[in-house]
């Protein structure tokens, strides 16, 4: 069971580190803003993206069937997994058939969700994460703290020491070029000596059976083309109907993620290489259940850009690990309770409901509204004593109150860089510990609340 506020409090003990973390992410958010500002038709494109996702969800079964048919025609082998366990078993079976013992993996939040590394390592298989950020956290034996920048919480000095210990580099004081070059040499050897490559999928195009993967480091391609065996794992929601929809999502993805207009590499895998095998595993793992929850199904539109994390004042000041879930931040706080409400019931309260997440989301998921809806569900269940113990600060209830919901972010919040003032003495104490906020009208707010509740 995750206690977000408690974990956030721990993260906040190192004030300097928190300030640095906050600032790093805010810079990424600003790059996203600059990219969106210079883009003709940005809002139109977001609308299109959102609508096409809605359409796709409404015909998801047909598109998945079409995708499978095409992929098989292209020479790929398609597998279906209802849950993490089945997914991991399928991967292991394919690897065993090929006698593969060394695996290189490019970034895939789905395989994180499935606990694949742990599972394969238990079977004696070496799994090397090849995205630099993921390799860093893998060496540190930590999960990623962000879906786009997995090691955003790590300072260069820590990375220096990690590499010194594991890659036998000299201590460099954290010289990024030296460290990145060392990782390059280390990983290139891993690619060339690997037996199989695992990737995720950013998009899967139904009409052609194509998997699209975006990287800046070139690690997905180095892995896939080094080995005879490529296994791509995708959630059912990665489907898009046709190639012209790739244009929409690719234009939005990198700009929303980091402010880049596109990643260095946008790779389209259609058929296996000559003499090779290409396996695609289509995974449910709770997604069909989320699809059935009318209030939360929009969360399945997510293209994993991370913009809602970068913009979230709570995420920035509590760190990805405080969410205790594969996907942290605002969208993670909608998805995770859908997977296990008992474990993740504190997450929908880890938000000021300021609405900035919904404002930046490239596929226009109403993130803050969904968070609010989860709070209602959880509060109701709490009243029914459904949870043995609920982890939530008292003022969590404030946010279950409709009037207050309206009042909170959108109205009160004038500057996102600092939190809505009235939150200071409420549940967000932990996140803002030691942080100087302008003197706040919290007293009058509470008076208002008292009066209006009656």
């Amino acid at each position, binding site marked *: 069971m995750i206690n977000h506020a408690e974990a956030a409090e721990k993260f906040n003990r190192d004030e300097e580190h928190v300030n640095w973390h906050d600032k*790093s992410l805010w810079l990424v958010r600003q790059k996203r803003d600059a990219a969106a500002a210079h883009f*003709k*038709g940005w809002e139109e494109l977001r609308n*299109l993206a959102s609508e096409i996702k809605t*359409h796709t*969800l*409404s*015909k998801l*079964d047909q598109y*998945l069937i079409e995708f*499978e048919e095409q992929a098989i025609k292209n020479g790929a082998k398609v597998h*279906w*997994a*209802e849950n993490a366990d*089945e997914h991991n078993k399928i991967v292991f079976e394919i690897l065993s058939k090929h006698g593969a013992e060394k695996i290189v993996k490019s970034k895939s939040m789905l395989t994180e969700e499935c606990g694949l590394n742990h599972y394969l390592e238990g079977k004696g298989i070496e799994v090397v994460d090849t995205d*630099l*950020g993921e390799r860093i956290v893998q060496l540190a034996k930590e999960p990623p703290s962000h879906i786009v*920048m*997995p090691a955003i919480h790590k*300072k*260069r000095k820590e*990375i220096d020491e990690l590499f010194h210990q594991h890659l036998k580099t000299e201590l460099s004081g954290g010289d*990024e070029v030296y460290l*990145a070059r060392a*990782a*390059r040499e280390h990983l*290139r050897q891993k*690619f*060339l000596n690997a037996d199989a490559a695992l990737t995720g999928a950013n998009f899967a*195009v139904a009409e*052609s059976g*194509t998997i699209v993967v975006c990287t*800046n*480091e*070139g*690690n997905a*391609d*180095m892995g*896939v083309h080094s080995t005879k065996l490529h296994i791509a794992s995708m959630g059912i929601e990665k489907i898009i*109907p046709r*190639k*012209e929809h790739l*244009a929409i999502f*690719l234009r939005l993805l990198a700009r929303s993620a980091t402010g*880049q*207009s*596109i990643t*260095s*590499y*946008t*790779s*389209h895998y*259609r*058929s*296996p*290489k000559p003499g090779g095998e290409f396996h695609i595993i289509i995974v449910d793992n709770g997604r*069909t*259940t989320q*699809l059935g929850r*009318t209030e939360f199904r929009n969360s399945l539109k997510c293209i994993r850009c991370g913009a809602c994390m970068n913009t979230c004042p709570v995420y920035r000041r509590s760190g990805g690990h405080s969410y205790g879930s594969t996907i942290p931040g605002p969208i993670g706080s909608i998805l995770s309770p859908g997977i296990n409400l008992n474990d993740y019931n504190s997450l929908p309260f880890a938000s000021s409901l300021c609405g900035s997440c919904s404002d930046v989301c490239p596929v226009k998921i109403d993130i803050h509204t969904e968070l609010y809806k989860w709070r209602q569900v959880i509060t109701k269940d709490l009243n029914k004593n459904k949870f043995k113990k609920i982890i939530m600060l008292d003022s969590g209830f404030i946010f279950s109150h409709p009037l207050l919901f309206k009042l909170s972010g959108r109205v009160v919040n004038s500057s996102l860089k600092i939190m809505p003032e009235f939150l200071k003495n409420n549940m967000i104490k932990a996140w803002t510990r030691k942080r100087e906020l302008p003197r706040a009208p919290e007293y009058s707010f509470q008076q208002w609340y008292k009066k209006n509740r009656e």
Partner: protein
Amino acid sequence: MSKENILNKIRRNKPSLKEILGINENNFCEKINLAEAFTKNSEAAGGKVIFASGMSEAVSIVKSLLKDFEHAISLADKFDFGTIALDEEISAKALEKLEAAVLTGQFGVAENGAVWITDYGLPHRIIPFITQHLYLILNEKEIVENMHEAYDRLSLNDFGYGVFISGPSKTADIEQSLVIGAQGPLSMTVILFRE
């Protein structure tokens, strides 16, 4: 079995049919100078762009760029000065020492500096990634404005593998400091020639 279970659950749980929206590309068209925008965006992505007034100049530029490399591959038409013998059987390991590769880009995209290449005529798919330095030959006429036009132009059925390359490999995973040269090439140069 799992397939049917998943599909049935989707059928039970999916929202009612929502018609698909068409894309009106005019809404995104900016009528920009294509070569100029391409160059600017390629450089922003960490790439280099060199102009050549014609094919013969492009050839001599590439020749001089390659002269210091011992292990080079040249797969573009008229650029037959590679030093590694290529056959269908060549392995990724045999390409480890590759310093430079010259390929033809099918077309470029102005909005982001990306160049489209496919496995057609590529003896090994790893070549654009394992090479230390990548050179792409691109005809200035073959630049489209944005990704909508790019996908109008390519067919997903024409290749086994295809990729948009917009720059060298790069990472910012160490404290958000940009390092050019991650797991793939250390540099990427587009030679943009005018016919």
